């Protein structure tokens, strides 16, 4: 097996192992694919219901330059916002994504927007890498979450984060002391996303009615 091994044997061995690996991986992928898709859809659903109080069902939508249209389940089109439907079958609002740079990494959020009274009605952090015990309080801190029950998003003023205890206006977010950068990241994510999407969404809704 030492010097006498021909290179063709090396190629065949490595090739054989690689082919076997490929088959094994393809099998695993096929088996786990529906489970992973189900998990992802459930996680998204849970997040949509979380940010839109009262929602019990979800509808997928796509909003772009051509307007707002519904995306059916299983369609190839990627939805970029979701509507929450309550038990009475009424639309309670839209869930939109937003992101901004935090202290450690990009903070991605999903927030609920109610077009009736033009307010942000809920917010959930989808992914973040903020410092445990400090910055990651943006995810759970009840006082901070309180900011997003009726945050003004009429865009008369841009959404902004202020220092802890200095919130005076409905469009301001009361920051967390000790987590200034992370709180500001949430404010920035909301500001960027609302500035871009809310006018488009409102225009599309008005055109549709």
């Amino acid at each position, binding site marked *: *097996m*030492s010097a006498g*091994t021909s290179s063709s*044997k*090396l190629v065949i*061995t*490595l090739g054989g*192992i*690689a082919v076997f*690996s490929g088959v*094994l*991986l393809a099998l*695993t*992928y096929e088996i*786990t694919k529906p*489970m*992973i898709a189900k*998990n*992802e859809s459930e*996680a998204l659903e849970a997040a949509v219901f979380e940010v839109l109080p009262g929602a019990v069902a979800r509808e997928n939508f796509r909003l772009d330059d051509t307007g707002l249209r519904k995306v059916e389940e299983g369609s190839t089109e990627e939805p970029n916002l979701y509507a929450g439907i309550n038990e009475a079958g009424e639309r309670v609002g839209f869930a939109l994504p937003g992101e901004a740079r935090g202290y450690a990494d990009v903070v991605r959020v999903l927030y609920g927007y109610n077009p009736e009274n033009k307010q942000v009605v809920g917010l959930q952090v989808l*992914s973040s890498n903020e*410092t*445990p*015990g*400090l910055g990651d309080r943006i995810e759970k801190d009840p006082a901070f979450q309180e900011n997003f029950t009726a945050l003004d998003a009429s865009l008369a003023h841009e959404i902004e984060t202020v220092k802890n205890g200095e919130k005076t206006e409905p469009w301001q977010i009361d920051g967390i002391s000790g987590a200034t950068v992370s709180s500001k990241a949430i404010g920035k994510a909301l500001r960027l996303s609302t500035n871009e999407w809310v006018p488009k969404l409102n225009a599309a809704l008005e055109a549709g009615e």
Partner: protein
Amino acid sequence: MSTKEPEAMTLETFTQGLWKDNPVFVMLLGLCPTLAVTNSAMNALAMGLATTFVLIASGFLVSLLRNVIPKQVRIASYIIIIATFVTMADYGIKAISLDLYKALGAFIQLIVVNCIILGRAEAYASKQTPVKSMINGAGMGFGFTLALLSLGVVREILGSGTLFGIQIMPDRFQTWSVFVLPPGGFFVLAGWLMLFTWLRERKSKQEAL
């Protein structure tokens, strides 16, 4: 090695990894995931079990092919085999729980380069029968899981006041955030290493008497 081994030898190869040659506490291998993912008991357990799966499966396959793989390409072959099982574990965890998958992050994929696994393939599985290699892999894997859990349990109780996500400390308990941060990993690892080294030394002294 003769083909017939007494029963005691098989058991010994299992307990070797668990205690005498514990990968973390004795050989100080695989310290990167040990420090990185043990901020909660659940993460530690999942990481340990994923590594155990890869150890057992790759041990079996490497041992099965030990007479087929030419010496020149053995490391390349081992890496393909290990990477295949790691990717399977990766899909598996994603299918079981997305939250767990997010918490473990890149460390699942990084099992590929965990030196415990390649070390086992090279030092043990490439010379022993498939069954013994699997038993040896299981021993090492459970030893690794045990070490990870030892760290994870302490860090979660002190850092978050919970165990497997269930609150066990009284509400008054002020959590020591440092324990879920990277420095906490070093502190707890050092504590366990001191304890285990002391136990081993005491045992060897007693045996010498």
